[in-house]
Structures are given as C-alpha cells and as structure tokens.
C-alpha cells in the first residue's frame, strides 16, 4: 500500500540502521528485540551488548499476522527489565503499525505498572495517532510520533539513538566495578570463553579477575561476571558530558579588521553576492566559523577548534 516492498521489510531495515547508530552513540548499552504477533508477544533476541546478534535476527524471516496486544508486550518487557540493576536507564521503543490493541485485561493497569518501574516508553506509529499510545508515552515520559513516509520514519527512529537527558531524582548513581582487560601475549594459546574455540592470546583479551580469554569488548565475563570495557567505550560518551556551547550568529561590521576566513576550514567568509556575510562565532574563544563547520562541530566533532587551540588563561 504505502511502504515498499512491505511495512515489515522497511521497519526491519530501518531498525538495523537504528541499532548500529545506537551502539555507536551508547557503547555500554544493551538492546533486546520483542515482536507482537497474533495477540501474543515473543522475545526475538535476548538483551545483549553486541549489535551483530540483534541484526542477524532482524535479517531473518519476519512475518506479520493477527492482532496486536500492547498489554501483552508491555507485560513481557516489564518482566525482563525488572531484572536490570537500578543504575541502568530502562527504555522501550515500540514500532506500532496497528490501529487498535486487543488486550486480555485492563491496559491502563499495565501502563501504571510501567510508570512505577520507571520504564520510559516511546512509540513510533506507522498508521495514525492512537489514544492509548499517546497516553502510554505521556504517563511514562516518552515521546510519541507518527511517521508520514519512509524517510520520515527513519528520521524519527534515528532521533531515539542519542541518550535522553536523565532526570536528576531518578538517576541512581552507583559505582560499578568494571575491568579493563589487556591483550594476551602472542604465544599464549587458550580457549576463548564465548565460542569455546582455540584462540591465540593476542587475538583476545584477558579478564583481569579470572584470567579467561574473551573475544571482543564490551562484554560481561562468562566466568566471573565482571563487566569488561575498554577506555574508548567510555570516552565515546564523554561528549554528552562536555558539550560545545552553541555559536552566535554574527555578521561583519564595516571596517572590521581581522580574519576573513573560517578558522576551521580556511574558507573565505566574505560572500561577494550577499550583503550580510552571515556566519557564526564561538562565544568562548571568539573565533569565526562558517555554517558548515558549525554543523560539523556540533554534530560530529564535539570540540571547538578555537577553544582547543588556545592554552586556557586561568591557573
């Protein structure tokens, strides 16, 4: 009808892109997949930290049939997410195409249960706006959006990849014990604990607590349960904690001396056609940048080149 070749195919493809982007932005997070079919909810994959197993399940044959039951899905997910420790932020993202929900009981009770467990539910609808989805999202603090077409759907889905701001009262702080494994020695031959295959030490990492061989990071050691990460995984999230200040829009005043070029890419900021010569300036280091560098700095680089190229003058 609308999404080509079929809604299921489009949703699966966009979900794969979302999972890759999600793990890029949140390397220490876990994702699990659940399907709703014939009024019953099934667990498609376990909650895990590796994108490959999730994507493999998505690429398999996924069929649609029957009614959808929001209550059954939320009950199943509530059961899973209750096992997560309190420092973890729990979220559900529902990709919903149906126009109703056929439930065995009172779905409002389930919504209350999710709200009490602090599970943030968001829904992306493919058809039309439904009251129950809107109520669910409003109660739990999630976002409800309805996609207009395929590209809009992908855009809405990718908006859920960056982490949402956490409310201070709900964020339980814990110091979690984590291990930072090193690679083993070249000549060390051992069996890796994940695949039970013989691996050379240099291809895997050695858990610092129980000394078993693991293949990839981040993971949880199967023997002693220690979370194993490497410092780049933590560093990937630091830009959320130290964001770049938004730049101010400025224009050249008459007779102003100084840089006519963008500080970042050295492109000329003087546009001979337009009168305004509109560009941006960092409020901290007062360097001028073009709009393209502004977008790149705030969306991808997360460093202001001007601020980084200055030795700070405070002692």
């Amino acid at each position, binding site marked *: 009808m609308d999404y080509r070749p079929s809604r299921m195919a489009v949703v699966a493809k966009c979900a794969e892109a979302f999972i890759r982007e999600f793990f890029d932005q949140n390397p220490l997070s876990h994702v699990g997949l659940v399907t709703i079919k014939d009024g019953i909810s099934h667990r498609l994959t376990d909650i895990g930290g590796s994108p490959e197993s999730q994507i493999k399940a998505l690429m398999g044959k996924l069929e649609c049939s029957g009614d959808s039951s929001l209550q059954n899905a939320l009950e199943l997910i509530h059961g899973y997410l209750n096992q997560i420790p309190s420092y973890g932020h729990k979220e559900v993202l529902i990709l919903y195409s149906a126009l109703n929900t056929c439930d065995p009981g009172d779905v409002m009770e389930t919504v209350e249960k999710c709200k009490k467990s602090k599970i943030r539910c968001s829904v992306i609808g493919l058809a039309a706006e439904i009251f129950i989805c809107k109520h669910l999202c409003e109660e739990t603090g999630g976002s409800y959006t309805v996609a207009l077409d395929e590209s809009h759907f992908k855009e809405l889905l990718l908006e859920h990849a960056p982490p949402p701001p956490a409310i201070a009262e709900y964020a339980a702080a814990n*110091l979690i014990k984590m291990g930072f494994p090193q690679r083993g020695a070249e000549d060390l031959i051992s069996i890796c604990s994940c695949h039970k295959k013989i691996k050379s030490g240099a291809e895997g990492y050695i858990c610092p607590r129980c000394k078993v061989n693991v293949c990839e990071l981040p993971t949880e050691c199967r023997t002693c349960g220690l979370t194993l990460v490497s410092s780049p995984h933590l560093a990937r999230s630091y830009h959320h904690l130290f964001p770049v200040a938004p730049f101010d829009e400025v224009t050249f005043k008459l007779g102003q001396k100084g840089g006519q070029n963008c500080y970042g890419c050295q*492109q000329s900021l003087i546009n001979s056609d337009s009168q305004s010569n509109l560009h941006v300036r960092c409020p901290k280091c007062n360097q001028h940048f073009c709009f393209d560098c502004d977008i790149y700095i705030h969306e991808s680089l997360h460093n202001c080149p001007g601020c980084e190229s200055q030795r700070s*003058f405070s002692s």
Partner: protein
Amino acid sequence: MTSAHSKLYSDDVSLVVVIVDTNPFFWAGAALPFADFFGHLIHFVNSLLLLNHLNQVVVIAAGVSSCAYVFDSGNAAASGSPDVAATFAKASRKVEEFVKQDARDTAGNGTVAGGGAASLFSGALSLALCYIQRVFRSGTRHPQPRILCLQGSPDGPEQYVAVMNSIFSAQRSMVPIDSCIVGTQDSAFLQQASYITGGVYLKPQELSGLFQYLAAVFASDLHSRAFLRLPKTLGVDFRASCFCHKKTIDMGYVCSVCLSIFCKYHKKCSTCGFCC
C-alpha cells in the same frame, strides 16, 4: 578497527594533512635539531606533491599556546610543477613567524610550566578534520584524505576528551590518522588514534634518516596500502587511568552518571557529586 576503503574517491590521489609539533620545550632538548627535522619534512612534502600532480598537502603547526595553518599546496602557484626551493622558503617563513608568535603567547601566559608542557594536539586535529570536511563538500571526485601526526612532546592528559572526540569523528568519516613519533616516549593517544582509525604508528629508531622512514611508510596512498606490508603495532594499551591518581588500572569503579573512573570504592563520586 575499521580501515579506510575507497568510496567515490579517485584511486591514488591523496590529501595529506601533516600536523607538526613545534613545542620549543621539546625541540630545545631533542637529539635532532629542528632545522634538520624541518628539512626532512619539506623533502617529504615535495615528494608527496611529485607522486601525483593532483595530490594536496596541508601543514598545520601545533604549538604550546596556539595552532595555525602553515602551508597549503592549493594556495601555491597553480602553474607548473611545484618548485622545491619556493615551497621550502614559503613554509619556513610561516613556521618561523608561527614559532615566534607562539613563544610570545607562551611567555605572556604565566600558567605554562616550563619543561613539561604538551603541544595543543587536540586543536590541530580539530582544525585538520574541519579542513577535511571542506574537501568532502567540494564534489564527488575528491582526493582521499588522511592525517599524519609528527609528535615529539609528551601527551597532555587534559586533552584526553578532545583527542578522543577527534578520533571518533575521524573514524566516522573514515580518515586514517598516521603517527610518527620523533621524541623518546611512545604516545598512548596516538597509538589509540592509529589503531581505531586504521592508520600506521611508527617510532623510528634512527632520527637522522627520518626522510627515509617517511617516504617508505607514510607516502603511499590509501589504495596502495592494501598491497604493502606496513609496520604493525602489536599491543595497544586500552586500559583506563583512574581520575584520582592518574595511574593505569586493570579494574576500577565507574560512576554510572558521569562515567568517571576510580581505583577504590567511594561513597560519593567526586566529579558529579552523586551519592551512592
């Protein structure tokens, strides 16, 4: 971990952004004098420009208090093949001006500790990446960009977050970061950078033959690298350092709110103030 592969690039045309460490505290005590080092560098730049007439080279100097663009082959005279003497003269003048200005800024700023100050590598990397984004915007057939860092001074731990941000951005844009260490210590930042972005990390043993190392290892374009055996780093140390003592740890405690790393269990996280 991902290595660069050609997209819509012209196969062997490269854009090399060279980041040069001009830290006076390091060069004052280095085994190789700065003038000789600069000579090696200029010969290398010229050989890059001679390999393919469409190659571009940009040199950025990273000082102690500032960073600046020092040479851009696109600005040079478009007519004819590059003239070695002219390249040398122009670049030398700009580097001299830059080093003098940097020294003035450093002297005026009282907070820089003599002897141990690090160069502003994070700033130079950010400038390089902005320039490369401009090249990406210039059309469908553009040169394959890569970054070459020549570092001598030690890493500045205050630049850790900014350097990691630049590394991840380079990884996303598939720009390899090569590193050539001209100092005495290995650089943990550049080891991680080269490993994550798929570049080459090298610490030459004989600095008097620096041009040979540069020409043999770093001059080849990205397409040809698939057919060459380049130096491999065996073990990159990805362990984190604790925020309290700055020593590398095997196991630590990570705050779930701000991701600060501690070596011992604390009741309260010292960075974000949250109590457990």
